[in-house]
């Protein structure tokens, strides 16, 4: 039963659209035609693109993890004034619309920009830097969330037995963090491997990923055969990455001793991670600063004109609604998407956190875990086009759903579910089974155990999951652009539209709207932090 709801949800809103579209590409004259594979895989271009995809995803993941772990140490295991603000701020890049990030990055990197001397515009390095910019927060928050509730005593014991801080960290703490680390790494890998807008805007013509190629083949050439073959290739890459991550996790899976409230942080951060993190934060701040400065630059100097314009529909009525109305639409959609994602995601997490005794059942759980991650590994254009194909009148519904806007929160929830799962699952998995056994021994029924043991421990991570889901929904553009009602555009859609209009004022307004979106996201994440219960020295 718990399995049926999420399976039905993802089956109808994800698997059916995607398989329908891929099926169109692989079925010719009523029979399966696999000759497309030989043809598409025989193109040198295909292999170049697959290679580039793997290279940028691997590099982006490794760098995000290497920088993110010190970040988690500083932001989650130590105390200093302003920590709460920084925690919220590092999440901002994660949900900024790619169109805004592209503008900010290129303003920095172009020949006459502040970082023009590096000559990075349109290079591979620029793409990887942007991927790290987007995904640093994923590592920091996923790892930090587990870290701040790790029982510090094992590490203290190691220290008192004479281990150096480094040794204690490497032999005690790091292994305990592995579940969260692999979770974060597999997420980041998926995000990097399926990056789209960033790669197009920053990579120019020379770089492409499987994702951008699928988009071009589908939207520009309608070469569904090539797009389907590439989709299959993409899923194979994603499944392989997930399998590797799953194995790494399984080897290290263990019951952790978690503490109920975040550990009272141990005072000032260690200098090494502190320095690394300070440098990273400055680098993260640069594009954001470029964005803010751009939004304050007016025709004759500096001012808040572009922010005042947010209450209008832009120069020459560029928009159908004011930016504030679009913000309202975004918030409404995000509430819906978050509720959906949370219900489905928590059920999935619960299901996948079980450790059945039978090996076959255990394997099934492992497979399910991977299956629910797939939405992150399939391109938005495939989902969007597939939804237009299949979800007009599903189950004989009389109204054409494609014209109602109902599919927008649904599509966003599909993208957010894996994030919810990855946020809640490490905590659920780390619940000490002896606690559950003790409760059962004392006569608690399964429901009661769930509520008082698993539920109580996972509740904290649910707060973070809410923040993530809400933030993802606020920033989602790919699927939304196919499905949103033109009379009810979301904020990222409005930003995209403003930036696509001539007139310096519309450009400034787009940047101002981007800043508003960034602040809103930071606010949501900060509020989600508060939901997680009393954390000392918060804000």
């Amino acid at each position, binding site marked *: 039963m718990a399995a049926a709801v999420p399976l*039905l949800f993802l089956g109808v809103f994800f698997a059916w659209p995607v398989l329908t579209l891929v099926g169109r590409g692989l079925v010719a004259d009523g029979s399966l035609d696999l000759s497309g594979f030989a043809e598409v895989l025989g193109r040198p271009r295909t292999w170049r693109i697959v290679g580039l995809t793997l290279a940028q995803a691997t590099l982006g993941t490794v760098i995000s993890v290497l920088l993110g772990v010190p970040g988690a140490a500083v932001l989650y295991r130590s105390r200093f004034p302003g920590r709460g603000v920084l925690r919220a701020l590092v999440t901002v890049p994660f949900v900024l619309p790619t169109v805004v990030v592209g503008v900010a990055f290129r*303003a920095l990197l172009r020949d006459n920009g502040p970082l023009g001397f590096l000559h990075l515009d349109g290079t591979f390095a620029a793409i990887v830097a942007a991927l790290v910019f987007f995904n640093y927060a994923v590592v920091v928050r996923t790892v930090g969330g587990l870290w701040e509730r790790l029982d510090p005593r094992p590490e203290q014991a190691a220290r008192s037995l004479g281990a150096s801080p480094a040794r204690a960290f490497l032999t005690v703490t790091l292994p305990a963090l592995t579940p969260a680390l692999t979770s974060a790494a597999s997420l980041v890998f998926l995000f990097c491997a399926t990056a789209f807008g960033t790669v197009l805007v920053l990579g120019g013509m020379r770089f492409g990923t499987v994702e951008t190629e699928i988009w071009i083949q589908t939207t520009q050439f309608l070469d569904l055969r090539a797009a389907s073959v590439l989709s299959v290739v993409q899923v194979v890459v994603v499944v392989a990455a997930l399998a590797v991550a799953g194995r790494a996790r399984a080897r290290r899976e263990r019951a952790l001793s978690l503490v109920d409230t975040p550990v009272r942080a141990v005072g000032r951060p260690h200098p090494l991670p502190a320095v690394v993190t300070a440098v990273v934060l400055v680098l993260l701040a640069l594009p954001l600063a470029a964005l803010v400065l751009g939004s304050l630059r007016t025709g004759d100097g500096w001012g808040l004109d572009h922010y005042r314009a947010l209450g209008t529909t832009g120069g020459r009525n560029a928009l159908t609604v004011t930016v504030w109305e679009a913000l309202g639409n975004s918030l409404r959609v995000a*509430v819906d998407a978050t509720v959906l994602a949370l219900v489905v995601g928590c059920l999935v997490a619960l299901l996948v956190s079980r450790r059945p005794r039978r090996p076959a059942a255990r394997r099934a759980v492992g497979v399910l875990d991977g299956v629910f991650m797939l939405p992150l590994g399939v391109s938005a254009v495939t989902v969007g086009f597939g939804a*237009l194909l299949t979800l007009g009148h599903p189950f004989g519904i009389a109204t054409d759903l494609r*014209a*109602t806007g109902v599919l927008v929160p649904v599509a966003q929830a599909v993208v957010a579910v894996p994030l919810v799962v990855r946020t809640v699952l490490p905590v659920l998995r780390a619940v000490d089974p002896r606690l559950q056994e003790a409760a059962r021994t004392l006569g608690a029924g399964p429901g009661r155990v769930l509520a008082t043991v698993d539920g109580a421990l996972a509740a904290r991570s649910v707060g973070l999951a809410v923040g993530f889901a809400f933030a993802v929904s606020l920033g989602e553009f790919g699927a939304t652009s196919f499905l949103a009602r*033109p009379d009810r555009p979301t904020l990222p859609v409005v930003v995209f539209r403003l*930036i*696509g209009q001539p007139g310096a004022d519309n450009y400034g307004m787009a940047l101002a709207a981007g800043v508003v979106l960034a602040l809103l996201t930071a606010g949501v994440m900060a509020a989600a932090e508060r939901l997680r219960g009393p954390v000392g020295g918060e804000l």
Partner: protein
Amino acid sequence: MARTRAARRTIRHTAALGVAALALTACSATGGSPSGGSAGGDGTAGGSVTLVTHDSFHVSDGLLEQFEADTGLTVTQVAPGDGGALVNQLILTKDAPLGDVVYGIDNTFASRAIDEGVLEPYTSQVPAAADAEPYAPDDSGSLTAVDLGDVCLNVDHAWFADRDVPEPATLADLTDPAYRDLTVVTNAATSSPGLAFLLATVGAFGEDGWQQYWRDLTANGLKVAEGWSDAYYTDFSGGGGGGSRPIALSYASSPPETIPEGGGEPTTGALLGTCFRQVEYAGVLAGAQNPEGARRLVDWLLSDAVQADIPGSMYMYPVSSAVDLPEDWAQWAPLADEPYTVPLDEIAANRETWVREWTDLVTG
């Protein structure tokens, strides 16, 4: 037996839950108000009509409401993407059309849409239909021209004046070493102005000559940005975003936007010898639920009120000769006298080949 019953019950429960989740979304914060319900007035088409457009479709407040009041129709809009994506979605969803009427198919994709049979012929009888006629892609009556525009290179006057360098005038000028590293265009594979400019070069240098032109252009330090806004705001020195290149791909209608606050002359100009003419069409979709409503909407797009609104709302030129252009357009944004052209059937037959060749050329 009991097991199957239990299983069936589970499925029913689950289905009920799934539907409940859907219902929750439908009547939730988003407040999806499905536009069903035929509110047909007497003697009017009545009911609802769904308009499918590209994502830049926009008319001033009140126009659509006036149409609804006049006809008793309720208009629902769907905007699932831009030029190429829009046509391809219509082709994909032929069996369950996205709506009743489409606006925003342009001449680079028109033949494809007609060949794939996504449109139903309709010949409008409103006065402006006579103005639209010469732009028809074929004589089937499938598509009716609504507006047009020229994709042209724009130059930053101040940049050239400050350096005492003469402004370029032709496509060939751009390969002159004097203009090295000064030009930015957009990706022909992913942006509609980029594709239009590629076609301008095909029109100018012929099917066998355009490749060499692009080789020369690339060798002369050409920059290819992803889309119009990247080129215009990030790379163009005259777009207000502080870029460094004084020659950028944009539209004939862009210069008026660069008239300084206090009035006066625009700081940029379009090179009218480098243009490709884009025409945007409307048409009734095959399999429309409300073909009569769709036809009324096509008529409405050709009405004086909408035609006069098009320059201000969509930066395109109305097809109708009965309406006046905005003053600053009349003065600063003339259309090209002789834009480059490529026959539509040739575009349909070769577009993908050309775009692939172009991609290989430019990425080197």
